[in-house]
């Protein structure tokens, strides 16, 4: 099918007048528009319209509704009970909620931990596996396996490791005797780190795959040139390979910020975000599935999450799209 169409096309394409590319493009666009029948135009509108409306209503209108609701109180029963309260929800959130600042801090810790440990380790593994050694595929699969499994399932698997009396760690270290317990999940000084180990375990594989893909696109002649100049392995990586990974690094950074803002499933399965593991996402969710349904208040937390997310997403996408347009 592919070859078929291209061969019939090529004489026509060759017969086109050798105008400047911009001019030709504009002319083509104009002639194409003329060729569209009314039905075609309707089809095109529907093709874009249906998915866009669905996406806008369910994602963006609700996001804006979160913003609007954040300035109100509402018990969720009937629209008349919606009351405008200005910045009250935010004031309460920032001043009175004992969980808010810890949650924000934990989200930040989550990001810092992921960027400092699994990210460099994923890069390291990718560099090793990129050397075309034997069994590369087997190793790759082993490191990557946790990424395929659901976060919820990972939570259950790690509970078997952390459980105070039956878990792997305490059983191995003998800390499962009464009085010697190390309560990895219950201790507010430990549980965040315990969850982060599980999260890093998964994140490493993800980073490895992203970096492997990035490394594949490094021009081999660059490496050859470095080798000819007598650069060692580390020097080549540091001065030749790593700088070319810049686009991958950007993606990795953005992915990691977003992952740390999105973190939820693992903590929820672990201990429902009880003391020590609060996250913004958990606070929002507790407002819906918990006993108290304070919609305005929950929305205020969501707005904080939205603002932080957009502060990362928008500059990144604008830069990415601008680059693409130029090329």
């Amino acid at each position: 099918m592919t070859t078929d169409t291209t061969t019939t096309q090529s004489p026509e394409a060759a017969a086109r007048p050798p105008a400047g590319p911009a001019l030709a493009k504009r002319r083509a666009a104009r002639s194409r528009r003329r060729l569209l029948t009314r039905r075609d135009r309707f089809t095109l509108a529907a093709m874009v319209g249906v998915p866009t409306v669905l996406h806008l209503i369910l994602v963006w209108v609700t996001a804006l509704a979160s913003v609007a609701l954040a300035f109100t109180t509402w018990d969720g029963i009937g629209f008349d009970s919606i009351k405008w309260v200005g910045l009250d929800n935010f004031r309460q959130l920032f001043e009175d909620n004992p969980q808010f600042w810890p949650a924000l801090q934990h989200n930040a810790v989550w990001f810092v931990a992921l960027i400092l440990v699994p990210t460099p380790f994923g890069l390291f593994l990718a560099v090793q596996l990129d050397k075309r050694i034997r069994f590369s595929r087997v190793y790759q699969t082993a490191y990557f396996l946790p990424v395929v499994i659901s976060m919820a399932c990972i939570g259950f698997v790690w509970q078997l490791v952390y459980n105070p009396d039956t878990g792997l760690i305490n059983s191995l270290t003998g800390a499962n005797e009464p009085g010697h317990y190390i309560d990895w999940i219950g201790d507010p000084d430990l549980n965040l780190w315990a969850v982060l180990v599980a999260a890093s375990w998964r994140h490493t594989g993800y980073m490895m795959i992203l970096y492997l893909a990035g490394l594949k696109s490094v021009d081999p002649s660059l490496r050859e040139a470095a080798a000819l100049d007598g650069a060692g392995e580390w020097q080549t990586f540091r001065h030749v390979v790593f700088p070319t990974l810049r686009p991958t690094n950007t993606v990795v950074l953005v992915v990691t910020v977003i992952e740390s803002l999105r973190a939820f499933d693992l903590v929820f399965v672990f201990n429902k975000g009880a003391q020590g593991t609060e996250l913004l996402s958990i606070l929002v969710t507790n407002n819906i599935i918990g006993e108290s349904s304070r919609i305005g208040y929950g929305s205020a937390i969501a707005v904080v999450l939205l603002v932080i997310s957009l502060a990362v997403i928008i500059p990144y996408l604008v830069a990415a799209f601008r680059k693409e347009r130029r090329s």
Partner: protein
Amino acid sequence: MLHVFLAGTALAWLAPLLWAVFSALRPYGETSSKGYVSWPDTLNLDNFTNAFEQSDMLHYFGNTLIIAVPAVLLTLFLSSCVAFRVSRFDFRLNLALLLVFTAGNLLPQQVIITPLYRLYLLTDLPGVTASGKLYDSALGLVLIHVAFQSGFCTFVLSNYMRSLPQELTEAALVDGASVWRLYWQITLPLCKPAMAALATLLSIWIYNDFFWALVLISTGENMPVTSALNNLSGQYFTDPNLVAAGALLTAVPTLIVYFALQRQFVSGLTLGSNKS
């Protein structure tokens, strides 16, 4: 030397999973008397069969199927439509549209959940869904999956379609083919590799969804298997060995998909990240 290191880490990486398998293979009575770290006397699949039967897992797998299959197909269809339009035609809103879709996909789900939850409760659909609302229905989950995931797919597919030669559709248009034909018979077949990669990725993501179902489904019976596990572990399972078996069973379908379609999966993941 490198191999020793890599093999060692690979094994350490699999350790939590292997530990779960080991625990799941042993009877509860034995582990509770001998301790979990002990030489096994009996290894059998009893926990797996018990977890599967006691929790009626087949039913929950069925729930997942009626959510995931339509969601994957619809997402691919709708996002390829948008991608076709923005990559094949000059459209003033091209860039803005792509930005909106992609940014929407990157938002944390909790940003939109409160109003979404209310919207789902308010939407009356008598006769359409069993609950009479979007809330607590498979349809509701399908819609949010489609809306959310179409961001990523639109982005990837529009990049992919842009790399196809413009002349293909142009000439067909000159020959009088309808726009629909250009999309369905000419463009779509050429996108098969990207579609396959995205389909693999989407099925794993949607299968693994925990959050949407947790909040938007109220009847435990209606939950997809990943989220149901959370309820089940408290409701039916009293011993960790059984929980291990249950958790591992829910991971089996994704592992099968991954091992069967490894290449597609990995290429899908990097398709989105490398282009930008």
